[in-house]
């Protein structure tokens, strides 16, 4: 079943993605079809089954808190669409 346009708009806002009207309509239909396919997971009995989010038996991996050299600031900033005085520049926030 297709999502509603309102649902698509809500998710698009969460994902910080502007969509055209045409994209919204297409997304409503295609996501609906994919979710309908995903709904078959409901047929699987997962009672008492622990979720598996990573295959490795590791949780937090720590290292010594030692300061190491980071890449050169100017090299990092070279990829920025806008930079000024050694910092990233963005439109006014407040």
């Amino acid at each position, binding site marked *: 079943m297709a999502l509603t346009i309102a649902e698509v708009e809500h*998710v698009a806002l969460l994902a*910080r993605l*502007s*969509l055209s009207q045409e*994209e919204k309509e297409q997304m409503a239909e295609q996501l609906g079809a994919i979710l309908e396919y995903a709904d*078959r997971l409901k047929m699987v009995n997962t009672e008492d089954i622990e979720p598996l*989010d990573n*295959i490795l038996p590791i949780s937090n991996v720590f290292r010594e808190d030692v300061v190491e050299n980071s890449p050169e600031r100017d090299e990092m900033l070279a990829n920025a*669409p806008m930079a000024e005085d050694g910092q990233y520049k*963005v439109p006014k926030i407040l």
Partner: protein
Amino acid sequence: MQLCDLTIHQLKSLLEKKEATAEEILDSCLVRIQAVEPKVRAFITVLEDSAREIARAIDKQGNYQGLAGIPYGLKDVFCTRGVKTTCASRMLENFVPNYDATAVSRLIEAGAVMVGKLNMDEFAMGSSTEHSAFFPTHNPWDYNRVPGGSSGGSAAAVAAGEIPFSLGSDTGGSVRQPAAYCGVVGIKPTYGRISRWGVIAYASSLDQVGVLTRDVADCALVLKTISGYDPLDSTSINIEVPNYPDSLQDDIRGLKIAYPREYFQQGVDEQVKAAVMQALKTYESLGAVVDEVSLPHSEYALPAYYLVANAEASANLAKYDGVRYGLRDFSAENVVDMFSQSRAQGFGPEVKRRIMLGTYALSAGYYEAYYLKALKVRRLLKNDFDQVFENFDVIAAPTTPTVAFKIGEQVGDPLTLYMNDILTVPVNMAGLPGMSIPCGFADGMPIGLQLIGKPFAESTIIKAAYAFEQATSFHLAKPALGVK
């Protein structure tokens, strides 16, 4: 036969005997690239000058250890210092990393010669390389067909003789599936075997670096070179890396091979089935013990995969906001509009679809029903494999349900396209090593045999693959290419 058509081990032997130089090998590859690229279009970037510089330096030194003097290409998902790394996306069209991925650093240390960056589905999302933001890549066996994906450029370039090996990445089959479609060898080792540092992330709990070569011996050599712990990737595992070339033995008597019945249903083409069944007979004739098993949750692997992978993708791709790197929409007047419009312009339709799906699956009210449910199914999928591996050494199956499809045939319907990965995603969900090797042809197109092993048992599947290769000649077939 030209230098560019040879395997790494053949080239190494020529280099060591001084019968060829690294520069001659590079030249041969460059000539082939120039001849076939108008048709294949595997490369996003070719680095003729820097490759020549490296090749000359190696020749001057005269030491051909490791991979010294061997040309290669990288899927454009690997960060390369000073070289544009686009992920086949408008978003990163002008992105120039200031560091190398660890796998790349290890190839540089081994003396390999980087020839260029290879085409892929944008952000590794796709199964045909048609979702590259720049252009589709064509299958060298039939230019009207897809090379598979997302590492389509990596597979096509190796198959067309443009480079003897390449690296790809495999989140749900993105190395094995194009390897199968292009008739080359592709391995995705165990999750944690190769560092993911500097590999632009799609789904972090599933992504793994993979290797594409023309035969199993080459695969073992390259895998050995790039595997192993890396302090920069906390999910890379600090255990010894076996010397994989030691596994190139053809005595597999007593090896226990299982074939899961579920992998021969689900719309698997009859010719593909027949080729894989024939491969199992070959294994029997080599002294392996072959038996049918069941992986009962297989049919749920694909929907679970798309929820898990895209949930992770929606988080991983949140960083493309037009601030630190990538495309920015300069017309936006406030910062939220700048994020949303930059992302709208930078991402293609498949990437948007997956970000939306992942965001939805993680959003309030749907997290438990979709994301958490998928993780529970993931546990069941792993349990299925664990159970089979109590009694078997290797699982054998088709890599893909069909041979390579026609370009444009599946672009309209995302779900149909996702079905190409139905036999490869379970391996990523369980973090296991998987490999695809050529095992036959249907309609003139290559068929892949998938070999799956226990965690960190790459040596076992390499051994099984090598034994099959020694007993057959599918890996020697080459596409006609139709050029001089």
